[in-house]
């Protein structure tokens, strides 16, 4: 029993070591030539643009639900006029970035894990290397870079569609005007409320890109291995993202004390 536990712990440490080295290499290679601009743009389109409909729809729904909850709470204190500010604050500081990260890790993490895993088991990655193309730069670095670029942009989209969803829910109940709602929402936010949480999604992008690429790039075992890489990409990048979020929020509170409620 003890031997098995020690062996499992050793495997886990080895796995994390491998992931850390892989991520470190990906970050270093981000700043080295060749930059593979065409492939990065293609991946930004795949990861960012193709995720936009999912983000907009989810944002509308999350905003509407948050608005309904906020109204039922604030009504008790006679503070209904605070609904836009409270909703904007909740969305921009935490809900928007975290939900965007989780949605992208589901859609994109699984995609990267399956795509690179499929390329590995069908020798397409070896074929790239044999054609004198650095497969790590061409496949991994471009996807990590695309995730880093796409996550903050998608977060802004999530925040805006969340506010729109909140407005629509509020308009149905109280008939609030569009201008009043959005002016109240943005007046309650300081620069330091939305910049640091949006920038933290750069780290989310790095986590999603590197974890899913690591699992796919090192996949073994045929179709079963590809399926495993895809599933683990979603599960592990979501867990890492949630845990890392706690640390990042603490860092933001430390660096920008004004952002704490």
């Amino acid at each position, binding site marked *: 029993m003890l031997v098995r536990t020690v062996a499992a712990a050793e495997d886990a440490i080895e796995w994390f070591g491998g992931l850390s080295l892989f991520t470190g290499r990906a970050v270093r290679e981000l700043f080295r030539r060749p930059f593979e601009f065409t492939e990065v743009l293609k991946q930004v389109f795949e990861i960012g643009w193709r995720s936009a409909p999912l983000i907009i729809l989810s944002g509308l729904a999350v905003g509407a639900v948050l608005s309904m909850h906020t109204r039922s709470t604030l009504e008790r204190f006679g503070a209904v006029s605070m609904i836009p500010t409270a909703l904007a604050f909740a969305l921009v500081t935490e809900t928007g970035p975290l939900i965007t990260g989780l949605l992208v890790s589901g859609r994109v993490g699984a995609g990267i894990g399956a795509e690179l895993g499929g390329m590995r088991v*069908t*020798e*397409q990655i070896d*074929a790239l*290397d*044999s*054609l*004198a193309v*650095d497969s790590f730069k061409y496949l991994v670095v471009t996807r990590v870079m695309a995730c880093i670029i796409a996550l903050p942009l998608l977060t802004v989209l999530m925040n805006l569609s969340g506010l729109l969803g909140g407005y629509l829910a509020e308009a149905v109940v109280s008939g609030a005007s569009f201008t009043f709602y959005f002016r109240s929402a943005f007046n309650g936010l300081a620069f330091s409320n939305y910049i640091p949480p949006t920038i933290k999604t750069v780290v989310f992008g790095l986590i999603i890109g590197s974890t899913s690429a690591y699992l796919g790039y090192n996949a073994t075992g045929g179709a079963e291995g590809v399926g495993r890489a895809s599933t683990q990409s979603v599960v592990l990048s979501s867990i890492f993202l949630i845990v890392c979020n706690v640390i990042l929020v603490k860092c933001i509170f430390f660096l920008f004390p004004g952002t704490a409620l």
Partner: protein
Amino acid sequence: MTEELEAGRKSGKCAIEFASVSKAFGSRVVLKDVSFSVAEGTTYVLLGRSGAGKSVTLKLIDGLLKADSGTVTVNGEDIAALEHRALAQSRKRIGYLFQSAALFDSISVGENVAFPLRRHTKKPDAEIRSQAQGLLEQVGLGKEYDSMPGDLSGGMRKRAGLARALAVEPSLLLVDEPSAGLDPVTSTEIDELLIDIKTNRHATLVVVTHNIQSARRIADRMAFIDEGRLLAEGTVKELEHSEHELVQAFMNSHMGG
């Protein structure tokens, strides 16, 4: 023995040299102290049963894997000692046809063939397309430029993979199981293509196969690998008279691969 082989041997030029090479994956030993050399401009066939270590030998030649011990020398360079850029330069002179063809399934057949040209030359798009089209015509796939790899049969994929491997005008061509899973007619066509490449492009070929008929057609020299060990090495006739029973049984069999 062909004239090219004689010329390569006389000039003393070795395209590839394995010196006491061993390779293991965990506890599974794939190659044990293997040594052989391949003369320039010749076709060298690696024979053996499945899992004998033949495909690993090809990957060691291309630097896709590194030997645990021993030296793999390709065109006079120790392939494991090459730095990243030097390895890439070396690979530009090596074509590799993978067992599964390994075509990139997100781009068309023609773009697969054009891929190395787009990466490594500054030729205009029209010229690259025309060159890729020419290569596809050479392998009998002139009408398949815009087809996706998933739409091709196994034999067509192999031929497309061969066209891509030839795009870099390699001096060394590595071919993994060219006839696996193919009917005898397609298999013979691919063998003829390989003979044509050696004769007209003066390339060195290393071919991995189970197919003894195919091996007899294309080989100048052969090596027989079993359980990671090189059991026999020489010309077709020399292997036919090998003292190893397994080698003799393999050489005298009529299996189709």
